[in-house]
């Protein structure tokens, strides 16, 4: 993980909208744990909601091993805000976790500050594993690095 802590005022990229039902998830990413919400049958689903989608059952949580496969990706040469200006392109990907859910993240290099992988280093079907990017004192985003 990054040794350097960034304060909220320095981090200009979008931070997650905080809702009560997401609090448990973000508290755990801060502890470098990737939790997945589960329905009454124990099967994980994504994304966290207050009730299990499709049944409205109460939810539970299970920790993910953090390994998966790139389902698809798009190399973004322009970001959604001026905070991305002047940066190398970032890779937005959909990752199929081995637990059977698909989540969005960035494909990054396992280096200080988790910089983006080069566009030519990402492909559909590539194996990846989770890393935890402490983007601010409060928020840690799960990101993924290629598995050699």
């Amino acid at each position: 993980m990054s040794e350097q802590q960034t304060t909220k005022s320095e981090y200009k990229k979008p931070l997650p909208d905080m809702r009560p039902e997401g609090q448990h998830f973000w508290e755990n990413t801060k502890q470098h744990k990737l939790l997945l919400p589960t329905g009454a049958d124990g099967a994980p689903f994504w994304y966290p909601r207050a009730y299990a989608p499709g049944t409205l059952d109460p939810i539970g949580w299970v920790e993910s091993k953090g390994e998966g496969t790139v389902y698809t990706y798009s190399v973004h040469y322009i970001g959604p805000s001026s905070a991305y200006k002047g940066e190398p392109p970032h890779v937005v990907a959909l990752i199929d976790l081995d637990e059977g859910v698909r989540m969005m993240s960035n494909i990054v290099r396992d280096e200080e500050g988790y910089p983006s992988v080069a566009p030519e280093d990402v492909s559909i079907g590539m194996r990846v594993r989770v890393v935890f990017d402490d983007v601010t004192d409060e928020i840690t985003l799960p990101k993924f690095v290629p598995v050699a």
Partner: protein
Amino acid sequence: MSVREATPNVAETRRMLKKGIVIAGVGETEQGILKDRGSFQLLAEVTKITLDDAGLSLSDVDGMVTAFSFVESTLMHSTTLADYLGMTPGYFASVAVGGATAPLMAVQAALAIDAGLAEVVLCVRGDNTRSGISSSGMIAMAREMSHGAYEAPYGLTTIGGYGLLAQRYMHEHNVPQEALAQVVATQSEHAALKWNAMLRDVVSVEDVLATRMIATPFHVADCSLVSDGAAAFLVTTADRAKSMKSKPVYITGIGEGYSHQYITEAKSVEGVRDGLGRAGRRAMEVAGITPEDLDVAEIYDSFSFTPLIALEGFGICGKGEAGDWILAGNGKLGSKLPVNTHGGLIRQAHLGAMHHIVEATLQLRGEADDSARGGGNHQVPGAKLAITNGSGGILAATSALVLSSEPPSA
């Protein structure tokens, strides 16, 4: 997740449309960068054009269906416009389902007419999206389709969201980048003939591929435009239209389809294709037609990839075959089924699917020749049947219409 499929009653939809629900007037303003006109001003301008097309005055309109504005924030868009225009409609509604809005406005009008709530319904949408939007509004628009907690923090853009699906589609079906560029090239030939198209130059596949990459697989030229402008269509009954000026065009098919909201939730390429395709397939089922019967297709084209998966979902092309289809010259004016004869969102202007409906109507009226107003002839000779659609979100929600120059026969 359990999925509750809607069970539309085709016979009941046909019963409504058999009354003769028609588009009896259309209108479009200039499109592009119109710094001298505000959002409601554009809506008023296009209302006048549309009423003139039908030979009506404002007092003839008793129903009003509008959409939304990126610039003017109001929770009561339809009645705010009614106030601006100086009218007191008996029926009013605003529809907000992103790019699926325009065909859903027509559906809303048809339902109101069938229920006896109104007889002459103005469906109007316009905005100064290009000139009037603030930078924070632009960021909000770019993030509009991202989940605020689980997608937006990764720097997803709307373009990239479509890119995620397009890249997987191209991977699964071995579709080359050139197929996407050909969609743009084909539509550029059509936009060159459309009087109010923002981009009138004809571009080649090579030209498209030479533009700047925004989010793979999309270059600048693969993306829809951001524009100022307005468009409208007037929905009424065939009986009422008899006393109006323009040739009525019948709505003979309606269909809707949904598969996901956030792109992360899209299960598969096939799931998306089937979800959006359901809209077109149902509309054709209601109309009692097959894809082979169509003369023209005005297909929502937020990105160059968008019409490809829709053509497949509607059954016009086989799965994974739309790229080859378009590369073979299909979709062009002069081919068996011309697609986006006005240039679409990529070359004409972006106003959801409003222009697709207006263009389909003009085609079926035999009036898609803009030679007299600085454009060219983009009329499909003898066009009698058209399909048109709009998709909101990242191909999340789709609404489709079949339009016909003849009354419903089914």
